[in-house]
């Protein structure tokens, strides 16, 4: 083992992938996770877009590679401070325990938008308004039902909840919600082909490989109906359905309909850890995300010597993008450790 080390904060996709890559090159890795289980946000998903690959398999493949003797994993450890002192990067947890290393990698990731902030959509108030994460949890059980246990005859997905929304202060696109809604609507229709699925959108951003194909298939095979318009208001009816108001902006007509389940496609926001640790090191960028030195070739390094970034602590990314970014960060870190 080479006598140099790195602290990685956050054992999600980026953190685990980077840890594996760095450890394979003989460096000592301290991988710190605030939660009990590793895997980060990947744990919340059943299948991944656009190919319906099992999320659990991706997670297990990542975690299974963590058996290198060069990697020490500390779960249930929330890092509250990160700073450079005495030529070492020092991470301090909430119990005041210190972890020291030659380099530090932030992989603190994202959190999903709190849908309660869009009060007009009634999340947290009406039982049958749920988030895309709650849909995933239900899908894992193989059954998607209303709170009352009924099979939804009509389901609506609403994109851009907390994204591209000036009112909540998030001007950016979360990038993954459009295709995730297509995926979830398709999954729903696979289980309940006789039910109807609607998807409300501003723009369907199908920029990834095979996204457009999945979008087309959802319409041709599953008859998912896409309505260009945001939902302005959701309210419960006497029989616990959800009445929604929108505008079909393609026909220019107001629209009111009732659905059994409304799924809010919650956007991506910087996690508390990302925001906190980036601010402490003056690398905080827009919207609380961490800021790299530059997009072109410098996206994994920061203005702080020995402090690196990977994954969704910088901006919304898909899982393949996160894995590639983590590999790139690992490469940068290895290069750095070789030089010092």
């Amino acid at each position, binding site marked *: 083992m080479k006598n140099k080390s790195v602290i990685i904060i956050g054992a999600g996709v980026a953190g685990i992938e980077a840890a594996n890559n760095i450890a394979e090159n003989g460096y000592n890795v301290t991988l710190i996770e605030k939660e009990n289980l590793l895997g980060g946000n990947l744990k919340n998903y059943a299948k991944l877009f656009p190919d319906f690959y099992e999320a659990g398999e991706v997670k297990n493949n990542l975690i299974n590679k963590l058996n290198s003797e060069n990697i020490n994993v500390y779960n249930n450890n929330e890092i509250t401070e990160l700073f450079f002192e005495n030529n070492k990067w020092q991470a301090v947890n909430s119990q005041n325990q210190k972890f020291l290393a030659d380099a530090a990698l932030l992989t603190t990731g994202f959190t999903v938008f709190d849908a309660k902030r869009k*009060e007009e959509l009634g999340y*947290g*108030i009406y039982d049958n308004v749920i988030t895309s994460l709650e849909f995933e949890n239900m899908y894992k059980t193989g059954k998607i039902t209303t709170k009352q246990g009924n099979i939804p005859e009509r389901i609506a997905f609403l994109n851009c909840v907390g994204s591209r929304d000036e009112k909540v202060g998030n001007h950016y696109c979360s990038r993954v919600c459009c295709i995730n809604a297509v995926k979830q609507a398709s999954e729903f229709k696979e289980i309940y082909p006789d039910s109807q699925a609607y998807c409300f959108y501003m723009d369907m951003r199908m920029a990834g490989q095979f996204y457009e194909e999945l979008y087309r298939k959802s319409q041709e095979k599953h008859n998912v109906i896409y309505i260009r318009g945001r939902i302005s208001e959701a*309210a*419960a009816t*006497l029989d616990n359905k959800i009445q929604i108001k929108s505008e079909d902006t393609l026909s220019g007509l107001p629209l009111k309909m009732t659905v059994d389940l409304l799924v809010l496609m919650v956007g991506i926001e910087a996690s508390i850890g990302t925001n906190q640790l980036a601010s402490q090191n003056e690398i905080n960028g827009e919207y609380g995300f961490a800021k790299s030195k530059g997009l072109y070739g410098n996206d994994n390094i920061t203005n702080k010597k020995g402090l690196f970034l990977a994954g969704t602590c910088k901006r919304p990314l898909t899982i393949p993008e996160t894995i590639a970014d983590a590999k790139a960060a690992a490469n940068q870190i290895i290069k750095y450790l070789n030089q010092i």
Partner: protein
Amino acid sequence: MTKNKHYWNQYQKEIADDNYFYERSCIRQSFFPGSETTFLKILREELGKTIIDDPNQHTCTGIGYHSDVVPFDTTMTVCARLFSLMKDAGFKNYVPSCVTSFGVFTEVIETWQNFPEELEKTRNFLRKATGREFDIPNNIVHPSDIIYKYRTELKNKMKYQLINQETGKPLKGVEHIGCHYGKIFSKHAVGGAEFPQVLAGMIEEWGGEVVDYPERRHCCGFGFRQYLVMANRGYSVANTKKKFDSMQAYKPDFVLTNCPGCTMFMDRWQYTIAEMEGITYDDKKMGIPVLTYEELAGLLLGYNPWDLGLQLHQIQSESLLNKIGIKYDPKDKFVGKSGTFLGEPNKPEKLIVDYEK
């Protein structure tokens, strides 16, 4: 029902404890003549507060401003003159009776805070026109905020509760907030703009249950241009009808409002809908009583319903009074304060206004 979902409690605001300067509404005294007097009585006699009712007060320009006939510079100057009356009286807590006035004042003050040059301009206008000076209020709240703040104290003095005397169950209340209470600045609304708590809090505290129906947030039907432009009045009625169609299935016992326009249109348009469509929204063809929060508080405190002016509503309130168990004398309904019989208004053809138990 949303009884157990109170996360909007985060929207709270400062409501001054005492020493209020009251500004009456242009239209409330015509529409619901007992409400403002009742508010003053509750504050002075039940809560022991000091509140000034200045005879020199005037319009805030709200209706003219929202109808695009009064420019904003004029509105700011007229508001400034009202604030100058408060300064003369030595008070700092401004309480406009009308929700539109409340919206106008909060908009004007917000403008002054964000654009100090507008404040200076207004000071100059007022000085040149009247020679007067003014201060921005320390606290500006709607009277419904004050009743909400003291809802528990008032409950302890109340003779009645919002409980159906026959069934023992809570009475169901639809609450409707004026748009200009919370939709201009949600930070000025107790509970925010989407699920305001100001009236819901009163209903729940006083024993009732709030009805959460799909069109809860839909317009009452006033909306200024919808009503003020005669050609648009069908739109106004249609909006009110949409709300009542939506709430009907929940069988509400009453509607509670805090805006003159909402009270007016949800009350009067029930008559119009009944005459046009033959539809009423209760079992007895009498409609659903629509009350101001002062009237509801006054009723529960034991004030005479006819002193509160409930006979001047289009939808008569006896069904609600009987459910609550309020004692009243039907013979006094159209007797003036001097004891003279004032005569009864003409009766509608389809909406029933004579209560028969």
